[in-house]
């Protein structure tokens, strides 16, 4: 017994410190890399920001530092809460009034009016997200079939490539007036299902984020391993099964690369479009604050800038996660 314990102690006394040392070293270096360095970077940025901000005087007061922006985040959230309370109160009043009128006159059909208060910051975020996703999905629905067709057929590629190359670099701001006029002309129903401004933003987003997806899909499809195509030929797969079983899975990695690029473009385009066209959303929020010109405006715009950045980052991460879930190629790049 004693000998075994002694042995064990010896063993532990000798081995454990070494093991834990190694463990600690990797843990510490990991912690430094993943936590300490990003924190240091962020802290330096905040410091530089607040120092610089103090030294910039604008006609709307000093440039907002981190503290001012934080304050505006709070006040934006408070405004949102208050607005929600008001809205609830409005609906309660309306219900009560309607109930009273129905009680007096049973044949009266109550009218329900929507609350028309100003959209809050959070409402604008939601609107922007809905618009960007709709525009992006519409682009996906057009770009992927088009990209596959171009990738499969050299003549089609030769025919369409110049058009893509010309339209790809066009800024959303150039499309916007055209889209606005066309939508106004063609979408002139008295009782629209969706708002005209929503449609204008959506189409502008689609037009701008179409191209990266078309190009990447086409490149992916055209670059399929010749051996795999030969396998399909030897098996005599019909055209549709060939696309479904060989072409689509083989080009999934490239398609996703295109989709990530496109979503990034879509988000940037959307903010610009909303700003210029006064469509509801974060862009309009920024423009309204700019026009408003209160002493808080710059801080509120800065808050919006940060939110836009964070959402863009999250959208990209979301696409990456989706790619990892869907794609057979697990080596999806960061």
């Amino acid at each position: 017994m004693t000998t075994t314990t002694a042995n064990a102690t010896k063993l532990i006394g000798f081995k454990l410190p070494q093991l834990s040392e190694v463990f600690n070293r990797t843990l510490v270096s990991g912690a430094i890399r993943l936590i300490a360095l990003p924190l240091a970077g962020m802290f330096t940025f905040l410091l530089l920001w607040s120092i610089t901000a103090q030294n910039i005087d604008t006609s709307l007061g000093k440039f907002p530092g981190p503290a001012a922006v934080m304050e505006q985040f709070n006040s934006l959230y408070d405004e949102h809460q208050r607005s929600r309370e008001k809205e609830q109160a409005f609906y309660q009043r309306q219900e009560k009034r309607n109930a009273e009128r129905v009680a007096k006159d049973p044949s009266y059909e109550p009218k329900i009016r929507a609350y028309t208060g100003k959209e809050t910051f959070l409402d604008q975020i939601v609107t922007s997200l809905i618009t960007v996703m709709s525009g992006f999905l519409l682009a996906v629905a057009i770009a992927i079939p088009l990209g596959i067709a171009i990738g499969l057929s050299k003549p089609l590629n030769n025919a369409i490539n110049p058009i893509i190359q010309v339209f790809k670099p066009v800024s959303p701001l150039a499309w916007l007036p055209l889209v606005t006029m066309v939508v106004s002309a063609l979408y002139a129903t008295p009782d629209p299902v969706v708002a005209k401004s929503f449609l204008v933003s959506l189409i502008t987003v689609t037009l701008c984020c179409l191209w990266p997806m078309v190009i990447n899909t086409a490149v992916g499809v055209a670059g399929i391993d010749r051996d795999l195509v030969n396998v399909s030929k030897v098996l005599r797969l019909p055209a549709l099964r060939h696309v479904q079983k060989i072409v689509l899975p083989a080009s999934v990695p490239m398609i996703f690369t295109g989709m990530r690029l496109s979503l990034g473009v879509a988000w940037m385009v959307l903010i610009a479009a909303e700003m210029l066209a006064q469509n509801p959303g974060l862009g309009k929020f920024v423009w309204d604050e700019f026009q408003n010109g209160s002493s808080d405006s710059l801080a509120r715009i800065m808050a919006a800038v940060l939110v836009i950045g964070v959402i863009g980052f999250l959208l990209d991460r979301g696409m990456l996660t989706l790619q990892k879930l869907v794609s057979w190629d697990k080596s999806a790049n960061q």
Partner: protein
Amino acid sequence: MSVLLDISHIDMEFPTPKGPFTALRDVDLKIAQGEFVSLIGHSGCGKSTVLNVVAGLYQATRGGVILNGKEVTEPGPERAVVFQNHSLLPWLTAYENVELAVKQVFGNSKSKAEMREWIEHNLDLVHMNHALHKRPNEISGGMKQRVGIARALAMQPKVLLMDEPFGALDALTRAHMQDSLMEIQAELNNTVIMITHDVDEAVLLSDRIVMMTNGPAATIGEILDVDLERPRHRLELANDPLYNQYRSKVLKFLHERHSKPDVPVKKTVAKPLQTTENTTTGHAQKEAVEDAA
């Protein structure tokens, strides 16, 4: 012997900006049912072109390929191909890769249960039953090639075409694969055309070795009948005088062709090349030239 596959006087020209490039000239070969034929020759001599013509992936400029009395005009599962780099679909498991082929070939004639049994049977044949549900990137190069062979066998081809099937494998794995292939061949008695540039592999596996001259305008130089008893065992054969005789014959052929570029063939070919009209316009052929370049 009854001829199953008749490669009848095929010429293959690829159009290039500088005029047609003749890859093959008058390749003529008759192969019997159950025969194992190797094509051997230096790189770029057009071995793969012959195989691709038989597979139907290329169309010969002149002459043609007749299988069972019918001319070959397009690729099809009765001429299954085992490609050099396995060419499994990376997003499918071993089982699913074979399944794709089986569904396509037997989708109408076999029930679901029969198909499953057939897929498993073929993966059994190549000793891959332990990794049915692994994807290509989870298994070794030799295992991938086994699955590739299982996929080809599962199509129940009349002719099995193998394009340097073991070329990318290490020596030990290659030896294992050759033994496996001999076993399968003994059991199924397939008709096989295999491209190789491994002399030992050719002698060990083949009934006939077709030695091709150097390109351009490559053709069949010599045909060697390998009259060794089956089953063959590599260790016993190592000291077999007949085996070594075959081996040195092939080596000699390859060595002579290599040291002396084939001047006479080139000369006789150069003239008709200029006068013959160019009839190749196919898309596949154009691509092949781009590949070669």
